[in-house]
């Protein structure tokens, strides 16, 4: 009755979100007196996979097959279901990122396992198997009891504190029939360097208040100093000042970083829906009536073109001394 965690690989490297999922699975397994088996699909070397032991996995099943580097959720789902059967796993954990959103639902339908998508915190098993998740676009939480024997938890990115427990996982070859992909990946258009928004702990975001794309240099500087990702509001992505994958909000990406700094964004309800689960929110806006201030922890009323250079200077000094 092990806990199975799905590991997503990117160019042979374990994604940060999968380390988080492994640590979550290990914390649950510990409370349930169980152990964690990780499943990695695609090319990777054993040393990389063995490092999952640091996050609490005791065993890694590895299907070292180049076809699996091209993502087809249907194929991945079939292989996870095979691993669930082989391991007799009752709980499957993965990140609720793009891959997780593709796979978790399919797996639920395939093995008839109830699921909580975007789980926020460990299950409470005192009376059933109750898991908390965000609902109503950040305006509430729900507690859901999974009533089926098999259970799937896709965990909200950045919702679980990763602690290294130390240890090395044994890596075993996993053999299963790999069906042909029905989806062909033609090309990827990904940002070069930097931190993808969905994986970021710190996010610096800006809106129309910056007046034009040529003024984003100081935002990127701040992101660079903090090691943060950059984001933007919908109007800014709609008019093409910033790429679409930076758009946070109801029709963009919903994020929950430790720190969200919003510069020149008024704070429409659709924008708040994407960021209101951030742990700390800072708003910088020259309009003291901007609705975003009501949702913020800290605020500076001031012109971004004056405040941001000062803030960058102060952050640089802070980083140099800490």
């Amino acid at each position, binding site marked *: 009755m092990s806990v199975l965690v799905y590991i997503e690989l990117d160019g042979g490297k374990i994604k940060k979100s999968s380390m988080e999922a492994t640590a979550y699975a290990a914390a649950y397994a510990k409370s349930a007196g169980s152990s964690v088996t990780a499943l990695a699909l695609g090319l990777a070397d054993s040393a990389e996979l063995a490092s999952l032991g640091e996050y609490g996995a005791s065993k890694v099943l590895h299907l070292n097959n180049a076809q699996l580097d091209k993502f087809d959720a249907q194929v991945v789902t079939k292989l996870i279901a095979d691993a669930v059967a082989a391991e007799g796993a009752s709980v499957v954990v993965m990140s609720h990122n793009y891959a997780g959103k593709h796979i978790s639902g399919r797996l*639920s339908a395939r093995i008839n396992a109830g699921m909580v998508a975007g789980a926020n915190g460990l299950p409470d098993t005192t009376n059933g198997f109750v898991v908390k998740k965000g*609902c109503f676009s950040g305006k509430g939480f729900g507690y859901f009891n999974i009533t089926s024997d098999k259970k799937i938890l896709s965990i909200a990115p950045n919702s679980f504190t990763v602690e290294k427990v130390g240890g090395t996982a044994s890596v075993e070859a996993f053999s299963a029939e790999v069906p042909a992909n029905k989806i*062909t990946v033609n090309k990827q258009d990904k940002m070069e360097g930097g931190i993808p928004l969905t994986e970021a702990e710190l996010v610096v975001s800006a809106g129309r208040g910056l007046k034009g794309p040529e003024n984003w240099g100081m935002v990127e500087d701040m992101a660079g100093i903090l090691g943060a990702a950059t984001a933007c509001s919908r109007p800014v992505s709609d008019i093409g000042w910033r790429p679409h994958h930076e758009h946070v909000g109801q029709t963009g990406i919903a994020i929950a970083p430790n720190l969200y700094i919003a510069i020149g964004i008024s704070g429409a309800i659709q924008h708040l829906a994407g960021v209101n689960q951030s742990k700390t929110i800072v708003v910088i806006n020259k309009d003291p009536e901007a609705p975003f201030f009501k949702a913020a922890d800290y605020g*500076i009323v001031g012109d971004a073109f004056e405040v941001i250079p*000062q803030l960058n200077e102060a952050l640089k000094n802070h980083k140099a001394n800490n």
Partner: protein
Amino acid sequence: MNVLVCISKVPDTTSKIQFTDGNSKFDENGVTWIMNPTDEWYALVRGVEIKEAAGGKVTVINVGDSSNDQIIRKALAIGADAAVRIDANPTDAYFVAGQIAEYAKDKNFDIIITGKETIDYNSGVVASMIAEFLDLPHVSVAEKLELNGNSATITREIEGGSEEVSLETPFVLGANKGLAEQRIPNMRGIMMARKKPIDVIPAYDSVNALTATVQYEPPKPREAVKLVGSAQELVDLLHNEAKAI
């Protein structure tokens, strides 16, 4: 093209979200209900565009009671040809997807489209569940779809960018911004929608929910914003108080 578009009824984006009966129920008092935005703006409109370009038929499907007929009528006014309502409480994603898959399994739909996620439960998994129930491929968080006969090229969101994939019909699509432009129903559409029937069918006994709602919780209220006068003060607070940097 024979297209099925799945639509859901949700509280309007601007609704105040409250819970009742000791936080065990969602409080429907004063809530305005709408068609889920990504279902309406992107899934439905792209479905109608496919029919306009290639011919065929667009059917909308919803799981819910008769209070959902209002959003179904709107979908018909926007351009759907036919509507089906499975008369059941949409308990969880597995139940909804399972019901829709049971309906769809012998109807030969070429493309089944949902919005990328509903704005009430935010799970974003119904498209993938329908696909697995029907043994079809699916692509979600799709922002572009080009069709050439039965071949589709789709651009979908991934971490920090996008990915272009191709596949053949039939498939399931999770629709996001970029896929289509919102359409406002015109008077002719509204008049025609009145004449289109809504086929109400009972739930399929073979599919049951696998989760139950235990309770809700409002988010912890944030303390009033601390307005600070200088960048240095902000950095100090973020470091010492919020421990965010």
